């Protein structure tokens, strides 16, 4: 072992991989699916996705510290009370978790793709829907999981937009304007 590591980001072996075409098809499919999905399903799926993101970030040191602080405060008890009174856990039970962070990252990559125009012209239809690998019954959505997911989801959006801005050509903070010409009023 040493004090350095070298890693690669690669495509999952069984998937088509992240390409401009696959990301565009995925986005198109998501938008088309909205037309035959109820609003409560969309919201529920998003909540489930946020809760899953919250559970994942809670496994990191930074996430775990924040979660511990939240759990030690009144936030957790009040949140769970609200959740229970409004029966959120009940109506979200069994909702499939939307991969909310992957959506942000994939949409960000589309915005930076060099071949987006050609891809849109060439991709005729969205990717076929895929039967998801069978997973165990998703755990019940808790308030604290969803709150953690909201935190990391928001941070991801903030970091993504800031990264986009950094990748753009630098501009001066001061933008020159036209000279002011003195006239009958300005003497």
């Amino acid at each position, binding site marked *: *072992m*040493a*004090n*350095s*590591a*070298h*890693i*690669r*980001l*690669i*495509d*999952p*072996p069984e*998937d*088509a*991989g*992240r*390409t*401009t075409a*696959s*990301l565009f*098809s*995925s986005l198109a*499919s*998501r938008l088309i699916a909205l037309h035959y999905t109820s609003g409560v*399903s969309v919201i529920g*799926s998003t909540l489930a996705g946020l809760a899953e993101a919250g559970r*994942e*970030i809670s*496994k*990191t*040191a*930074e*996430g*775990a*510290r924040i979660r511990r602080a939240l759990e030690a405060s009144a936030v957790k008890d009040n949140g769970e009370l609200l959740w229970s009174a409004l029966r959120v856990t009940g109506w979200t*039970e*069994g*909702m*499939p978790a939307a*991969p909310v*962070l*992957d959506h*942000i*990252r*994939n949409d*960000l*990559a589309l915005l*930076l*793709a060099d071949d987006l125009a050609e891809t849109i012209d060439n991709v005729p239809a*969205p*990717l076929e*829907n*895929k039967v*998801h690998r069978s997973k165990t019954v998703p755990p019940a959505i808790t308030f604290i999981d969803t709150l953690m997911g909201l935190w990391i989801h928001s941070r*991801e959006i903030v*970091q*993504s937009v800031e*990264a986009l801005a*950094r990748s753009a050509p630098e501009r001066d903070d001061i933008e020159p304007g036209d000279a002011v010409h003195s006239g009958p009023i300005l003497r």
Partner: protein
Amino acid sequence: MPHDHDHGSTPSSPFEELMKLQSAFQQSLSQATMQYLRQLQGIVGPVTPGTVVQQVEGTGVTLKLRPGGQAKALVNVENRQRVHSMVTPMITPLVSDTGATWFAQTAFTPPTALLATDEVLDFALVLEAPKDMPVGVYRGAVLIYGCSDGVVPLEVTVAKQAAKRKAAPAAAKAKTAAKKAPARKPAARKPTKAS
């Protein structure tokens, strides 16, 4: 027939009981049907391509530091996907052999980066141990948040500074001096060229 004298309620007829039962059954049926449909929706859905982390070299990262001290490491990340990837390195809580969990304060520089296709970037990790940190070997992992299936093992040894060396006894000093100055061997003569 049940009759609640305390609350003064009128006795419910069998027909009313049947209607209550029927309503409860229909409510349960509609709830179960909606849940089933939602689960069905989740089984078949749009594909969302993801990212996997593959460790290329070595068996992980190992660091040593003392309580109150600092250690540094480097995580070199290469994007082999065909589109940009957002990279946010993080570490998991570190657990010692005694079961103590360390929610380490870490700083990665840069904290996050957008890597283009085939771009390579070094992320510098600085790990700080609290002053009252119990000594031991702590184990966890470095991960790229949001990427599945791939972590880099991380081992951190927290030890107090080694005690200062005491003055060596005379015999040991002499032995050390003898080792440092080996007997000189006569220099080998190089053969001279025949004129």
